[in-house]
């Protein structure tokens, strides 16, 4: 039986976090991060995952104010969490456009040392001039260069991590040798980075902190297959999951890698109840809180790409068509609709058939596939996806900060353990070890 991989996503900046719930805590106080991380570790999770942002989102030219806004610097929080956890992996999204390999390699190697080998990162790039306005280099990375930069960024960090071999750190006071003479020496000449010198951090416990990659495009799949340790994918039906899984895993051989060397980890939400019926009620309640009337209009605007503020959230869809020009009404977040006219036609048909107003339609069409049910049903479905090779595990995105994982850990994890598909205690000390990837280096 395949073992299930589980990770916990600290709910970040999106409309899935129900901040209006009376049980909702701070998204910024360190105590919130400690609670979620310790809960995940109590549940023997593989890792804790933090998203990243470098500019506050705007829509219609104004800072978005309806969802959670504001978050800490991810790697700085993870270093602090290393002090209050022992085994849990600690991973963060890092933007390779607005960072340099030398600094990121240094920070990740430092985190790997400070956590005893528990560091991981999800490498992303941005071609976004909007975010670039906060940085010296600006936003001028052509879209076609995004994977080129990510690939070279990752390759460069690995060159830096290899610049110290374990024997370079001697620290022998009697012989009088602290480190080898050429420890840390590197040169890298590439299209994105032309650098050379000496790296300051000795070989870290994992050598290469775990690398995750998100992105479903052809380029993204190839990039993942060539170098990543895990793919942070979208969750969908069992069949679609199996198709994605087969496709990505089949690419590995072309890069000289075994199918087990890359883990497929969809991000999922979940809603629990004592019974399946109660869970569905809870899920409906959560969805209505996630999509307030104001949020419904803003989400509709993201497809229509027009100011729809004068529309009634309970009224019908606009009869004008979406604006398909390049200029986006939303800044700081990717446009999610590839063919707006086609999607709008589908939404109109659906609203017509089910007699839905704007808000109810948005609730219906923007819900992420998730696990809804009693603990027994959720454990069963998670295991089914993993055993049927639609996933190797899941990154759970709770809807409440910071207590949203409590019920899952208390009620679902024991059922997975009873089935023998999830660890009852940690068997290794490193993140690569938890995922069974320590022998790939």
């Amino acid at each position, binding site marked *: 039986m395949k073992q299930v991989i589980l990770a916990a996503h600290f709910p970040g900046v999106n409309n899935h976090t129900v*901040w*209006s719930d009376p049980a909702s805590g701070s998204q910024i106080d*360190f105590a919130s991060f400690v609670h979620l991380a310790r809960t995940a570790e109590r549940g023997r999770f593989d890792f804790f995952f933090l998203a990243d*942002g470098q*500019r*506050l989102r705007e829509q219609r030219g104004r*800072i978005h*104010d*309806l*969802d959670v*806004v*504001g*978050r*800490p*610097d991810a*790697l*700085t*929080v993870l*270093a*602090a969490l*290393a*002090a209050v956890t022992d085994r849990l992996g600690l991973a963060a999204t890092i933007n390779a456009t*607005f*960072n*340099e390999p*030398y*600094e990121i390699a240094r*920070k990740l190697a*430092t*985190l790997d*040392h*400070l956590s*005893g080998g528990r560091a991981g990162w999800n490498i992303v790039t941005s071609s976004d001039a909007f975010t670039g306005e*906060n*940085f*010296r280099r600006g936003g001028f990375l052509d879209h076609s260069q995004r994977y080129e930069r990510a690939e070279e960024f990752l390759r460069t960090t690995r060159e830096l991590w290899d610049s110290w071999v374990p024997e370079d*750190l*001697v*620290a022998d*006071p009697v012989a*009088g*040798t*602290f*480190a*080898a*003479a*050429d*420890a*840390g020496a590197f040169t890298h000449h590439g299209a994105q*980075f032309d*650098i*050379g*010198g*000496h790296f*300051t*951090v000795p070989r870290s416990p994992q050598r290469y902190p775990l690398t995750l990659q998100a992105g479903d495009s052809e380029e993204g799949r190839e990039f993942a297959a060539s170098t990543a340790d895990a793919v942070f994918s979208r969750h969908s039906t069992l069949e679609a999951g199996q198709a994605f899984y087969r496709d990505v895993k089949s690419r590995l051989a072309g890069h000289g890698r075994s199918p087990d060397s890359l883990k497929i980890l969809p991000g999922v939400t979940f809603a629990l109840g004592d019974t399946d019926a109660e869970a569905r009620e809870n899920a409906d309640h959560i969805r209505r809180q996630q999509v*307030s*009337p*104001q*949020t419904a209009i803003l989400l509709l605007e993201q497809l229509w790409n027009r100011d729809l503020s004068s529309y009634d959230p309970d009224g019908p869809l606009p009869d004008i068509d979406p604006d398909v020009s390049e200029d986006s009404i939303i800044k700081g977040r990717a446009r999610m609709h590839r063919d707006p006219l086609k999607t709008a036609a589908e939404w109109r048909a659906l609203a017509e058939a089910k007699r839905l107003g704007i808000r109810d339609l948005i609730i219906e069409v923007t819900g992420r596939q998730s696990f809804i049910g009693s603990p027994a049903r959720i454990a069963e479905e998670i295991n089914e996806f993993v055993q049927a090779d639609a996933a190797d595990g899941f990154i759970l995105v709770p809807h409440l900060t910071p207590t949203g994982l409590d019920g899952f850990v208390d009620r679902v994890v024991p059922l997975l353990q009873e089935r023998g598909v999830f660890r009852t205690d940690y068997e290794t000390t490193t993140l690569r070890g938890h995922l069974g990837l320590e022998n790939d280096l």
Partner: protein
Amino acid sequence: MSAASLHLAVALDGAGWHPAAWRDPAAFPKDLFTAAYWAALVAEAERGLLDFVTIEDSLALQSTRHEGPDGRTDQVRGRFDALLVASRIAPLTGRIGLVPTVTTTHTEPFHIASGLATLDYVSGGRAGWRAQVSGRGAEAAHFGRRDIPGLRPESLDDPETVRLIHELFDEAADVVEVVRRLWDSWEDDAVIRDVPTGRFVDRDRLHYIDFEGSRFSVKGPSIVPRPPQGQPPVTALAHARVPYEFAARGADVVYVTPHDAEQARAIVEEVRGIGNDVLKIFADLVVYVGEDARERKARLDELDGAGHVSDAAIFTGTPGELADLILDWRRAGLEGFRLRPAVLPTDLGAITRRLVPELQRRGAFRSGYEAATLRGHLGLPRPAGRYAGSRR
């Protein structure tokens, strides 16, 4: 003399400030790259009720040459990212201030602001910043974005070097300005969680900083809400007029390097003359503390093959003699001292377990923490945000 007003900090670097400190029998050279090593040092500093620790850093290997690596194998080489070390220690300590070094020359100001604000959150208001200019060509080559010929002490008066120093410190001043504006870019009460209107934040209490400088521009606002201290204290080491001016304009604490009380008086006068009454002036001192201080230094000098030289004055002597010196120099107008232990943990332990009790006996140092934040220890009030009340 008010007991609360003498400030003491220690500067942590590797195995200590003597280049051969790692070879001392009391050192832990194999542990320098572990969290436990740093946690033990900071816990010891907190035991001594010190105001804060600084953690040295640079984006290049340590070297005896300014031009680049020296290939020496008999001294400590390699170091961690100081900000992450400070963050790793924060949950394990309760009161002491944590002041990592972050360079102003290569690090993005936006990242500096986010990282230090986050340290302030994880430490409950104990973050500070040692803002450091990098004049080393080797560091620039690690980024590949610009060439820096490198500052050499013997050519500090060359016109080209003078121009470079001005350039680096002007840039550093811009970076500090941007970081401070970003910390203020969220008003303290920006998060409103107003359920009836569905608004999580009041966007009118978030502010673009719109910084436009000759080297970079930053739009803002920060992605991190205003940190607990509002503005974590900014500190800087300064040896000459240009950095004095940088510190007086941008910092809350400046570390200076007099070699006697007379020189301390002259430096304090010069820095005060630039016109910043609230700037705290600390003197840096390398210290070997104990009855065996001179012998320890001599032994290490022999191991290293050279006498220990430093930009700061080097003290060797007993805790009582060090207390005498501190109280003497303090009359020159210094508010505090940043002590650089020559050997860790030996000289740190001598500071916390012998110097501090000696100063307490003389009524010159606190007997318990009176505040919970670094600003509190330094007697600095929490500032109002500069944009507060200005609605767009």
